[in-house]
């Protein structure tokens, strides 16, 4: 297939994918204008767009209306928490998973604990997080890190455990010591699994940040979501929901771009 043909096929697919959402938005708008749905519950897309524009760009003035010109900082609050928690989850989950997958002693000592904590939903940790960290950033970051940690550690464990035996043997016969074996063989061999875990973890991180901000802190997309609902600003609620979706989607794309780069050897044959 030539590049031009492929591009045209891609465009056609994109057009097909956009058709259904477009139709739904048009029906939603029409229903709103016709007065079929009460605008206080489900405001029409045009009203949501206007509220969003004000939320993003309007002059905050004296700051009495929290939905004027505060969108950017709100997104940043949430994104920063996700980033911090996610990085913590990677820094703890990857080495721990590698060690569990590599060393039977470590597996015996640590894996049962991880497996017994894993079924506890992230929402069930909320009171604990607030009790320990209070109404502060640390509680939200803890929750995010915890949520992202489990898929990362589990996948890193599987990756480290399934390194082909002859790759380990080859490295040993070439003189690699234990540390080199872990860093130069086990880690790179486990990276495809680790990226799978990170993508799952990032999805959970966005869930965790919204839950944490609804309950435990007073800023970010989750806080605004609940606060706007309380004051009856459903237009802002919907704009907030879409913002969360876009943020989650974009952060996943960034992670995939990093993955394609780091695991370039996996794509080599196709290229």
């Amino acid at each position, binding site marked *: 297939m030539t590049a031009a043909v492929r591009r045209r096929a891609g465009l056609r697919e994109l057009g097909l994918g956009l058709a259904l959402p477009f139709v739904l938005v048009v029906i939603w708008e029409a229903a709103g204008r016709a007065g079929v749905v009460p605008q206080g519950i489900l405001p029409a897309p045009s009203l949501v767009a206007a509220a969003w524009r004000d939320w993003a760009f309007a002059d905050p003035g004296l700051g009495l209306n929290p939905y004027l010109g505060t969108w950017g900082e709100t997104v940043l609050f949430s994104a920063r928490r996700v980033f911090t928690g996610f990085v913590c989850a990677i820094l703890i989950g990857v080495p721990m998973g590698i060690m569990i997958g590599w060393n039977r002693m470590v597996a015996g000592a640590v894996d049962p604990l991880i497996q017994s904590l894993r079924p506890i939903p992230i929402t069930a940790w909320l009171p604990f997080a607030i009790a320990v960290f209070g109404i502060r950033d640390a509680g939200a970051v803890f929750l995010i890190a915890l949520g992202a940690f489990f898929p990362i550690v589990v996948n890193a464990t599987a990756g480290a455990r399934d390194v082909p035996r002859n790759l380990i*043997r*080859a490295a*040993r016969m*070439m003189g690699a010591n234990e540390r080199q074996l872990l860093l130069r063989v086990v880690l790179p061999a486990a990276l495809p699994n680790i990226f799978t875990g990170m993508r799952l973890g990032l999805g959970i991180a966005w869930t965790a940040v919204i839950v944490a901000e609804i309950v435990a802190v007073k800023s970010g997309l989750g806080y605004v979501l609940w606060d706007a609902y309380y004051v009856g600003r459903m237009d802002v609620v919907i704009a907030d929901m879409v913002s969360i979706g876009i943020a989650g989607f974009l952060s996943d794309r960034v992670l995939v771009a990093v993955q394609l780069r780091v695991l370039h050897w996996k794509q080599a044959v196709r290229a």
Partner: protein
Amino acid sequence: MTDAVAIRGLRKVFEGRAGAVEALAAIDMTLAEGEFACILGPSGCGKSTLLNVIAGFEAPTEGSASVFGAPVSAPGPDRAVVFQEASLFPWLSVRDNVTFGPRMLGRPKDETDALARRFLDLVGLSGFEHHLPDQLSGGMKQRVGIARCLILNPRVYLMDEPFGALDAQTRMQMQELLTHVWDQARGTVLFITHDIDEAIFLADTVYVMTARPGRMRSRIAIELPRPRSIDLLTDPRFNALRADILRQIREEAIKAMAEEERARR
């Protein structure tokens, strides 16, 4: 002079869930320095187990293996191994696969890169330094596997059916390449195969193993002139050796079948 490889009373039993498997029973053998030895034997007779003990991958149940007088306790770059499936690191370029060993020992990169070029040239892979293993054919991967052993400058080469998975034509090319490389690099080689022609073509000595549990059945000196070429395959001396070895192997195969019958009853 100390033997390059000395195996004394080697026995290996695998304790599995389905009971114990005696892979090797009382192996005694020695390889002289610079000897190219091929081991022939039916599948499952313990050839790989023997090689893995010498490599330090498996511990013997009884007896010992020593290399130049030192008892084997762990794998090391003095005993280079070529595996049947090349077992290259798929995330490293051909060059970085070859330099892996010396890099682990802390040798500087410019030095090891120059060495890699030399050995890749020797195995006919210059120009492929920056390819990834998955972009190479099976024969080329094995050549990388050989180059990463050559760069270690080991005292012993251990090769476990390195050409077993290749098609007949590639295998023949690889055999010629290996004799050519060996004529330059020398070193002691233990080469496992189940291909009789391959064994005669490559070896100074051919060891025929019995069916499991593996023992040494016989040792046959191959006194054919070197350097060897494919023309040798039609030499009458080659044919005489092949007939002799084939007879021994057939006897072993019949014994193995009888053994299996008895075990099943």
